[in-house]
């Protein structure tokens, strides 16, 4: 699926930037170091926004587009920060036939966030996941570490209220 660009404002700190510069310096001159640099950068920031990619581009002399190409290619890299409330709706086969498509649509409407992205205030992240192995509870979704199963769209308001 096409990766969604973020609408969340960058809140990087000076300390994070210093750590990033150290990471880049450590890998400077090593061939094929872009993957570890990006992985470590994501550990520092939690995701890889344009501000971070620009620093990496400038310090490594790599075109920004090449870095963006890598980040948008690999599933392990995130363009959006994880929100305080991370909602993952299972779209595995069992959940899907039990109506998880309707669940995700309802959440999209309610929170104004597309799957794969985070609300501009950084609060909610919505993700569509593959089978999470809880087919017996289908349709299922998780919010942070909580699991909710056998849902209908009518249940959503009550559940989401707890995280508002």
């Amino acid at each position, binding site marked *: 699926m096409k990766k969604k660009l973020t609408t969340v404002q960058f809140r990087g700190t000076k300390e994070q930037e210093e750590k990033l510069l150290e990471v880049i310096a450590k890998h400077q001159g090593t061939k094929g170091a872009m993957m570890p640099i990006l992985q470590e950068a994501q550990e520092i920031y939690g995701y890889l926004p344009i501000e971070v990619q620009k620093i990496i581009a400038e310090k490594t002399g790599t075109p920004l587009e090449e870095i963006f190409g890598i980040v*948008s290619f690999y599933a392990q890299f995130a363009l959006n920060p994880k929100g305080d409330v991370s909602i993952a709706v299972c779209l595995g086969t069992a959940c899907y036939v039990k109506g998880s498509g309707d669940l995700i649509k309802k959440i999209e409407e309610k929170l104004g966030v597309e799957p794969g992205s985070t609300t501009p205030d950084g609060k909610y992240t919505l993700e569509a996941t593959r089978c999470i192995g809880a087919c017996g509870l289908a349709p299922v979704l998780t919010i942070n570490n909580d699991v909710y199963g056998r849902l209908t769209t009518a249940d959503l308001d009550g559940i989401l209220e707890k995280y508002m």
Partner: protein
Amino acid sequence: METVKIKINGREYDVPKNSTVLEAARAAKIDIPTLCYLKDINEIGACRLCLVEVKGARGLVTSCVYPVNEGMEVFTNTPKVQQARKLNLELLLSNHEKKCLSCVRSTDCELQKLCRDYGVEESHFGGTRTQYEIDDSSPSIVRDNNKCILCRRCVAACHKMQGIGVIGPNDRGFDTHIGCAFEVKLADTTCINCGQCIVACPVGALYEKDDTQKIMDAIADPTKHVAICAAPSIRATIGESFGYAPGTDVEGKMVAAMKALGFDGVYDMNLTADLTIMEEATELLDRVNNGGKLPLITSCSPGWIKYCEHYFPQFTENLSTCKSPQQMFGAMYKTYYAQKMGLDPKDIFFVSAIPCTAKKFEVGRDGQSAAGVPDVDVAITTRELARMIQKAGIDFCALDDEKFDAPFEIGSGAGAIFGATGGVMEAALRMAAEVIMGKKLEKLEFEDVRGIAGIKTAAYKLGDLKVKVAVASGTANAKKLLEAVEAGELDVQFIEIMACPGGCVNGGGQPYQPAVVRNNVNLRELRASVLYNADAKMELRKSQDNPAVNRLYEEFLGKPGSHKAHELLHTHYVKRGM
């Protein structure tokens, strides 16, 4: 050269040891179709059109990246190979917008040709087709990803050849598309508009922003005086659009075709190339004698100018303040000529026909309006001019030669060679040498700055003055050169830089040549030879001897570098950064 023996289609050949199967086959005069392969810059085996059978190999192999070895047996044209290629073409077509009838590349599209050759069924595979918005944000380049086949030739041209890299593959799988970082529009990147991506594209996914309708509208408007001037290099290339072999000089037919299109004046930009030399050589000598900023760097190539502004803003003071020949022409036309003929500059529509897509950006720059209106109204590429001629029903090949119109009809040999890398340098040296030494040059050729090498350096002793110069073409080479200057490894006073490798003859606005030609024919050298041959045959070979240029100074500008010349013929730059 070490060779190995291989068999291709049952016949034995000696081929270079380190070649690929594709290269070996071509040496044996057997063509294997390719779509993604561009020699030296895009050898990635992605399109899978160059599949061949190799005895003993598991499955078919991609010949563009498969090395030969002793005793290898290759089959390039078996039913199995043909079927695989056909299937791959059908798969490519399944996600390709098949608007071939009106496509700008129709009849010279590499995909279309292969589909015809292989009898491809257009609608073999139905299913989803990705839909993309056309990016026409740039004044020069339009990207239509609906036609893109993801061969990555444009990406290689931008990144590997030009050292820029503002485009690349984003996302993955079925969502993969060529775009810019964070999906911004091309106009919002550091793209320099050189157009090398366009000439690399095998299909109609990249093309120049077409400005020909504006010209036809102006010609049809009786209140407009519409004039056109032809850049030095396009007479060496436009013939290719009409079936002539690369390297054919068609100046006379080109002039005749321009006249048949209905322009009120058809002029030779070689003349303002000479004018550029008068101003630039004067600027060089002034900087050398009066402690000005050195090295002086040429400013004719608008792709290079934008590159400098983005990537080397610390060098913008080194740029010559001279406008490019195109802009000088428009400026002189709307001031000197308008005054002479009693025309209102607002009623003049001035067109330049150039080998360049970056010139479309240049016409809209600040400081390019000598008469209070833009010096040049529209800049069209060689390809657009050819399309106008075709659309107008003009039988180009059958035209009798005609000559440019006065008073801008004379260009010197020095102006002619502007279209090849090293040409501006040589032209400037022909003038600077005579001014410094105060006598006529006996030998006009400065051979060290000729040829298609990416970077050239030379030193000349002109009287008491030792002049050290450097020439680079292609922005990746410009980068190397400027880094050497910055590091103090290269000490020169004068540098010529052209954004396109080989100079204007290989510009991003030049006629398309398919990969099979680009990979096997030295286009840059062939096209440049037209210009050097023209120069060699001319009596008038120095800008400073051009009577039409001298008339401009006598009647209007005063002397080179005068206040008036500065007002009309010079410009300024901005530090854009990244």
